[in-house]
């Protein structure tokens, strides 16, 4: 699914408005708050759902070539995190839903049991 379409359907707010997400695809997502767990198990092109909001999330997303990061529960990133994400070209979103509900919604939209 196009990242833009997913964003509209789940009501994600794009924080990094300078990052062009047109044409970007997302196949699956990964939910975790442990950086090493994301390093171990997220796959290239995954959207990362988390409540972890410090600067290192940008590095992790960059290193794993993730499609973007969604901060759940309405958590807003600090200006440093937002500008770092912008600088690195990592789409950063805010969702008002808590992680469980957000994960559920994305799971359905991205194909559920038929997912990758």
């Amino acid at each position, binding site marked *: 699914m196009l990242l833009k379409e997913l964003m509209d359907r789940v009501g994600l707010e794009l924080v990094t408005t300078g990052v062009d997400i047109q044409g970007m695809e997302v196949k699956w997502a990964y939910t975790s708050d442990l950086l090493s767990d994301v390093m171990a198990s997220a796959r290239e092109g995954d959207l990362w759902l988390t409540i972890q909001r410090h600067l290192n999330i940008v590095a992790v997303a960059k290193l794993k*070539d993730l499609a973007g990061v969604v901060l759940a529960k309405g958590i807003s990133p600090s200006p440093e995190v937002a500008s770092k994400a912008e600088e690195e070209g990592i789409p950063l979103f805010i969702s008002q839903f808590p992680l469980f509900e957000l994960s559920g919604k994305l799971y359905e939209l991205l194909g559920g049991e038929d997912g990758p």
Partner: protein
Amino acid sequence: MERRELYYVVSKPGSFEEVGIVSTGMKAGLEKMGVEGSLVRRVAVICFEAEMNLVLYTTRGGNIRVVVDPERIDVFVQDDGPGMENVEKALQPGYSTAPMWIHELGFGAGMGLPNIKRNSDVFEIKSELGKGTFIHAVVFRRRDAA
């Protein structure tokens, strides 16, 4: 392609905000050299976990050296203390000596060394209490090189 080398000193910063700077720089360097994407990601994981270990657990930081040649990528990580009491335990997934405040930042899951090992084709570690730790990780670029 000739042999290329990337070298970074990881100093102990005042905050964790800086963790990731070395490994993202390393990743950009490898991409510029034209290293294959999936291998870049494996080396990136190795470097990130090594960088976190240097920042979180060493006395004064350390250094990371990445040597790229057509057959293989070698990562060398070196610090001068404090060294580990039990390397075998540190290699067990989930084993961690990190205090609570480190856990709350999303670190200290006990997955650092296991992640390095898992992404390496060859993995070597030596650690001596009071002296320091040395890690050598190899990622092969050609299957026949393995």
